[in-house]
């Protein structure tokens, strides 16, 4: 019986402790919003969810948030980079956009206020550059019966994320044109 109690305590504490940590993050971590271009798929296993597709997962030279100087600074003499990075977010009105990159272990500097973990593929091309970012923001589960305020391909979808310094962003709440969506 003692073994059983040890096992039960271990398993329950692990799961409930994990949940408690995220409760703490929700309660204490600063948040900001990033713009999305979501899709709204459904499958039998996962149910209904948004494929979040943040706007900053694919940035090119025409982007206004990411300056060519920042790209040159990050790449240096190299023509391409692929690997883990720190992604900096700068305020752009009520939302935040990716605006800077830093290598792992590098002390972040620049205008960015929040720095999170991500995976970047940056290549210089003939007419500029192309940056693909994986911010770890892939899906957002929504209840099947929830009536959304707009179609998923409309402009104005945002995701509120919890910020943990040096770690990846955690999705928290959906916004549509500045209004939070109550999932319940």
């Amino acid at each position, binding site marked *: *019986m003692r073994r*059983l109690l*040890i*096992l*039960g305590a271990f398993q329950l504490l692990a799961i409930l402790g994990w*949940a408690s940590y995220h409760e703490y993050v*929700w309660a204490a971590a600063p948040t900001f919003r990033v713009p999305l271009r979501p899709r709204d798929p459904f499958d039998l296993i996962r149910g209904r969810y948004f494929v979040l597709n943040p706007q900053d997962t694919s940035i090119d030279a025409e982007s206004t948030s990411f300056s060519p100087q920042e790209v040159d600074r990050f790449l240096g003499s190299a023509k391409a980079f692929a690997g883990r990075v720190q992604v900096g977010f700068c305020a752009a009105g009520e939302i935040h956009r990716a605006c800077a990159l830093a290598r792992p272990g590098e002390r972040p500097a620049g205008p960015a206020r929040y720095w999170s973990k991500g995976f970047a593929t940056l290549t210089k091309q003939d007419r500029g550059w192309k940056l693909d970012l994986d911010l770890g923001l892939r*899906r957002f589960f929504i209840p099947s019966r929830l009536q959304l305020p707009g179609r998923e391909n409309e402009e104005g979808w945002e995701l509120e994320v919890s910020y943990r310094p040096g770690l990846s962003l*955690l*999705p928290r709440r959906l916004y549509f044109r500045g209004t939070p969506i109550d999932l319940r």
Partner: protein
Amino acid sequence: MRHSGGRGDLPVRASHEFGSRQQGKQDLEAGGLKSTAAFEGQSLVGTALALDEDQDRRLIQERVARRVDELDSLDPQGVGQRRRHVVCHKKGNAAVGSQLMDDGPKRSRAQAALHLGDVAESTPAEPETDRGVRAMVTAPRFRPQNLELQAERLHRLDRVGKKALLGVLSFVHQKSLSTRRGQMSIVDSRASGFRCDAFRNRPKAARRVRQVRHTEPVMSRDLSLLERHFRHWREEGLLSAELESSLRESSGQLVNRATSTVVRTALGGLGGGLLLAGLILVVAENWEALHRSLKLGGWALLQLAFLLCAHQLGRARPGRPALAEAMSFVSGGWMLAGIALVSQIYQLDSRPPNGIWLWLALVLPAAWLLERRAVAAVVFIALVWGFALETGQIDSIFRADRGDGPWIWIGIPLLAAGLASFLPTSARFLREWTGLWTFVAGNVFLLVLGASQDLDRSDLGRGWWLAGAGVLLGIAIPDQCLSRAWDSLTSRLVVASTFLPWILLGSRYDAGLILDELAVGLAWIVQLVIAILAIRAGARRGSESWVNLGYLALLAGILTRYFDFFGDYLEGGIALALTGTLLLFILYTLEKARRRTVRGAVPA
């Protein structure tokens, strides 16, 4: 078989065989008819033979016994070989069943009393006797009061023919034996209401006899199987009547208990399933409305309940570990549900293998703390799942770009089985799963490669670590990874030879390269070799399943080769006819060989 008493609705069935002619005669003289004398006044046979309470039964018995002596000199076959009757009892109910059962293919000699009519019809020279015999047996209303008339009828049975008399005698003899042994009471007057007095009310008795004729015997599959074995053992002389009686009684009780257990289990399962389904539906309907603390609390309570159930069932029913094992397995799976629940509530999205590794980490301590084989199964599943996901993950250290060959497909299960075998309570059935998977997957890969040169590309990259470790474990410790029906040498040969064509092939098949053509030819040979290895190992260890599986693989190999070679010519009728002939020939030959192998298999 003795009436089980109590419930009174148990179908009772008995089978007897006359011994030698001398024995049969002795039985009749010594005891059989004595017992019958105490019984016949209440019996159907007594009625059939037109006996009533006023008759001098002893006189008839002596006459019958004398007839046995006479028949001994007439009938080279002796008295009937086997006889089986089925009687259904119903306490407090007049429904009494009696029916002749099939004696099997060797039924040849004495016929039962109910068949006497057929014999009579075949002897038109004695119409009066025919009618008499048929009436005696089949019509309960016939009830002569005159003893001399009864004796005269018995004498006249000689004219009917020895078959008819043998049938009557064997029936009487069997009834007497059964009554004496307490195995079968054709009519139990107190239990069934079949008393001699009852026959004074003829229409009522007639109704009852009709019921007897139309009552179907009810016999479970187990008892039917047992009956076949009893028959065989009797023919072999291995089974005495007393032993058979004891065994029947014991097995009857067992089957009866088993039936009720099945019903209880089915009802319990149905009730539990409905309850669970209802709860799931309620939760699903209100899932969004439930607060996350309620969801997590419900998960935790259920996990505790599963663990406690596993513990308590293991203690309360040590003889039935399957229940505790099932609960342990459910609790292991429920951990994964907990991880999924937290991920859903907090919108977490990570590398898919990470969730599996977390699951493994949370379940692994149970292997030491619960000491259940089900935990090993959960660990095995987690390992296979996690490794497989890792090979498809871009950022994984085990990333495999292309794994068409058998390396990943067979290597990962072997690796998982090998690792799981080091747990304190390992599950031997994992070896059987892995052995079966290795054999089936190996055959499929070899057949496809041999026939179409597909499944040839492999660019495992860092996935080689997993595949290589699995293959090495399979070869190094086959007694911990592969089927128990395979000896170590067979296991090593199967694993090594399965991969041999791909070792020659390299990363892909190139038509025209001698080495690659050799690999394809080798795939054909290896597929047959591992089939034969499985048959050999199965025959040696007494595993009929592996023998069958090996022959199935052999058949698949032969058919694949045939269609590979002659598939283009199948449009013509002759080709189809030849194919059909070949199939029949193969099936006959292989089935004959399979039966011979199974017969010669040495039980493990």
